[in-house]
């Protein structure tokens, strides 16, 4: 299968520290790629570079063949790039359902003129989005949370909501930042199921995760990052059994 997301020779340094050192990486549709590496290896920074939150010093990012360089985060998201956050970043004054709706791919309610003068079509879109949001919540086992707010939910379910919201975008590439940190029990199993289903539908998934078991169960492939470089790419099993990489991970 062809590459959905291509990262080509991306470099970035903050002052003296290089968080991305000539990173070249491709994510394919239908596959889950795990990013492994110690804290500070530049995994989250790579996500930020891809999403346009941080500008790279050099290099190119392409989504489905289209060059993303210079685009703002929202423009990239509209082209089918979706992400979650390590700290979830749900909107605290919206219900879970509204959190999802606001992430919908087609959201005419963003246009003030349409809200005021094209009431019928925006309301129709709003209803479609609400339906879709309920559907996604059901798939994530979150039906009962639709009218709750963030603070009503345990941490693990908040993380699930974060992933559910990222799926409202019909993205072709989904980047998950530590989806399992702090997630236990039922939510853990659901998370695995949801991510696998997304990949099965053809989405290219990238996962940053410290939970090795989760990575091993879920990812088709993994890359090992260390101080801004990609040191190795291979099966997850191969990466975590490599003694040199293990030493880098736990050493220093």
């Amino acid at each position, binding site marked *: 299968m062809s590459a959905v997301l291509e990262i080509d020779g991306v470099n970035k340094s903050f002052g003296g*520290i290089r968080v991305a050192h000539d990173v070249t990486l491709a994510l394919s549709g239908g596959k889950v790629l795990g990013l492994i590496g110690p804290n500070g290896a530049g995994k*989250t920074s790579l996500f930020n570079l891809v999403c346009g939150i941080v500008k790279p010093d050099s290099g190119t990012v392409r989504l489905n063949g289209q060059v993303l360089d210079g685009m703002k985060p929202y423009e990239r998201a509209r082209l089918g790039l979706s992400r979650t956050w390590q700290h979830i970043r749900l909107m605290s004054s919206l219900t879970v359902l509204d959190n999802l709706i606001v992430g919908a791919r087609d959201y005419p309610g963003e246009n003030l003129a349409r809200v005021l003068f094209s009431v019928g079509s925006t309301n129709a879109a709003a209803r479609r989005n609400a339906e879709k949001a309920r559907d996604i919540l059901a798939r994530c086992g979150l039906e009962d949370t639709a009218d709750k707010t963030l603070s009503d939910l345990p941490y693990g379910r908040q993380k699930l909501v974060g992933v559910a919201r990222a799926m409202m975008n019909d993205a072709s590439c989904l980047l998950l930042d530590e989806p399992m940190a702090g997630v236990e029990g039922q939510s853990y199993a659901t998370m695995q199921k949801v991510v696998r289903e997304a990949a099965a539908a053809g989405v290219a998934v990238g996962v940053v995760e410290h939970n090795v078991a989760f990575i091993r169960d879920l990812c088709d492939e993994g890359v090992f990052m260390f101080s801004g470089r990609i040191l190795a790419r291979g099966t997850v099993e191969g990466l975590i059994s490599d003694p040199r990489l293990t030493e880098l991970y736990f050493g220093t």
Partner: protein
Amino acid sequence: MFDLATIMQILWTSVATSSYYVLFALSFALALKVNKVFNFTQAAVMSVAFYTAYGCVQLLDWPAFIALPLALVAALVLSWFIEVFGFSILRERKVEMLFVFIFTFMVSQLTVYLISLAFGTWSHTIFQSMFWPVTLVGPIAISGWDIPALVVAFGSAAILFAFLRFSRWGQFMVAVSDNPDLAELYGIEKRKVYLLTILIAGALAAIGMFLYGMRAQVQPRTSLDLMLFATVATIIGGIGNLFGALIAAVGLAVIQNASILFISSEWQAFLVYAILFATIIFLPGGLRMPKFGTRFETKTREISLAEETPSAPPSTRAE
């Protein structure tokens, strides 16, 4: 008109007037750097410092060596009050930046009205006369106020930088400004650091106001304008960069004094707003100026930038 002597005179006057601008800018920049607030209550502290000094000297006829320390104490008490009964409560409630702003803005306004009520809206100076004996050094006229003011201002600045660099509590302040949560993990008491910062900022602002009030007239609103000047200097200097704010304050003083040659007097007051907008449009990140700081400070900031949300200046929201 543009002869060397005029230019030298303007440069000298600029440097002399920069004395209080430097103190106001350092006060504002320090609160922003460590406490992550745009501390508009600084205007209240400045007004209280000035009017206490004025009241003691002119209304009560007390000597300056009693009046000024007393006014400094008044400014510190107000700063303490604002931190303990204002900022710290808002911080505990984790309110949005919006409410912190409303608080600081309202405190500065409330002070203006309280002082207008107590002292009227007329202009005052700390001492009867604001004219100082002038000495001619070559073509340049140096007033008796200039040198002491410069010594006090840059002396205070030097003490501040030395304090931040070498003293234990100064290093705590730098650590908290970098990463308050990490600093807390290392056992630094954030509350005390925030209070200390506000007190130091209050002292700097008060000293600046004494210098200003000995040479120029003050109305209840004057401190607002002076504080806006400090805000502009802070932005130009680069948020979080105290030394940058100091340099920017000197630069602004030069621009303001030199503008006398080009701009008619009724537009002088307008200048600071023009500079403000020019800064926002052309220098949003501030000038890249050298920084006084430990290596550790810069390093940790870069790492935290790299790993977490990198959006520009300080805490737009507290998570």
